[in-house]
């Protein structure tokens, strides 16, 4: 048995979000301060939060702060509202603005965060793609042309274009298991975790890990 210390819990939508954020925190020297868990997307958030309230880490006050994150996708305001509604339904408190910390009656604080940052649309892959683009701009000459060509052929944007673009790069893994794998990409694509694309998220993690 080890002595537990208070930590901040960061809830992520899915496995890829969890891995990217955990790696970013680690590169920012925040190992041990933040705990990342995935809640399975918006449709499962309420049930997850209710279960979280029954968990030991919540009841014994190991998690002094709980940050719930999600992607803005195409609509930042809708994403903010969905998090606000879920938090209110489960904890009976209002987090009006992402990044605002609200006291819970059971102890501890809760907040929300919408990726890619205040009033931004996009998803965690947007940040990754921006960072990769900044480091290897020459790759994107071909890739952007490819995406433009597809759009013209289909007559509409590819679904989740950013994710599609990122996966086009990632899909070059050496084995079948590695393809379409964020873990493979993080391990092998030499992401620049100091890229300005991650600045707001990195700053957030530093602020909440104290």
């Amino acid at each position, binding site marked *: 048995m080890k002595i537990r210390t208070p930590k901040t819990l960061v809830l992520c939508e899915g496995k890829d979000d969890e891995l990217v954020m955990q790696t970013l925190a680690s590169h920012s020297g925040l190992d041990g301060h933040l705990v990342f868990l*995935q809640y399975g997307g918006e449709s499962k958030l309420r049930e997850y939060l209710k279960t979280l309230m029954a968990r030991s880490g919540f009841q014994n006050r190991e998690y002094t702060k709980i940050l719930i994150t999600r992607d803005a996708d195409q609509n930042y305001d809708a994403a903010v509202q969905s998090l606000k509604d879920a938090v209110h339904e489960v904890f009976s408190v209002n987090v009006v603005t992402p990044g605002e910390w609200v006291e819970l009656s059971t102890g501890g604080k809760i907040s929300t965060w919408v990726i890619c940052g205040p009033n931004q649309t996009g998803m965690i892959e947007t940040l990754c793609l921006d960072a990769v683009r900044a480091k290897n701009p020459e790759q994107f000459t071909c890739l952007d042309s490819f995406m433009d060509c597809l759009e013209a052929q289909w007559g509409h944007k590819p679904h989740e274009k950013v994710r599609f673009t990122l996966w086009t790069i990632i899909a070059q893994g050496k084995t079948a298991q590695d393809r379409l794998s964020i873990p493979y990409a993080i391990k092998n694509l030499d992401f620049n975790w100091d890229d300005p694309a991650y600045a707001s998220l990195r700053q957030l993690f530093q602020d909440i890990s104290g």
Partner: protein
Amino acid sequence: MISTLELKQFRGLEHVKFENLGRVNLIVGGNNVGKTSILESLVLLCGNMNQLTELPTTFRELPQKGDDALASFWKLLLKNERIYEFRIISDIGSIEGCDTALGQWAFSRLRSDGNSLEISLIFESNGTVSIKNYKAPFHLSILSTKQKDPAVISELYNRIAPLNPDNETKIEELLRNSIEPRLRRLRYARPEGTKTHLVYVDLGEGKMIPFTQMGQAFARTLQVYCEIFAQRPKILLIDEIENGLYYEGMEDYWKGLMAVLEDQDVQLFATTHSRECMEAAYRAAKDIPSDPLRYLRLDRRIDDAAKIVATTFGKAEMATAIEFNLEMR
């Protein structure tokens, strides 16, 4: 059935409250958080005179035989020596225990109907306890981790099975489904050359063997059903219910037990350390319309280690926990 249980200044627990209890209540939590104290509080609340006097050694090993050890058990019922009173409060009645500081404990019981029944629990200078004016409000059965005398278990079986083929068939089926698929039949017998009657087991191998040779899970499960059918308790306490059970049989064990508890109108409080046991109980209970299963967890707060907090949760939280592989013990 008990639906709420609140403990104040009782053993290591300053104040905990469990609400919305179910027919099946699995008590979980880390080491030394007070799981056994919950069972002990239920013995104080519902136990008969023998169960009360034997309480110091029911769930715990006394460090030494003798006066000090017994006396210290009763003194330790109080969390804080400066507060001379503990309370166990439930919707079926409550107990107030008071250290009179004269080597004497005074217990008073207040029934839920408001009629007070005084009980005096006095421990003598030799450490033994005498109880006056006492009548147990409920029939309670207790299975601690200590193995009961096999002759006593066999005698219980003799009271219910041989002259009641339905009971006999039911117990054999329950044991066959969850513990020993080879089981053909059980017999209460005293073979020539032996001194006591025991339950013997037919595994189809030509020779019946005493149930004591069958392993802990078989003996314990036999005891559980003998207690339920013979003693007809309203409340059943089982310490470390997973003991001896192989993971593969746990779901069937729970299915059988839950059906019998419902059928015989028994409420179960059991402790466990096993995640497999918690998950098996969930799988067994998830489709039962009466929603019988509750998990009662105690946690020590990490910002104030002296404080223990209580949480009650049910199948919805457990379903999400299993889906996301979350630890709920």
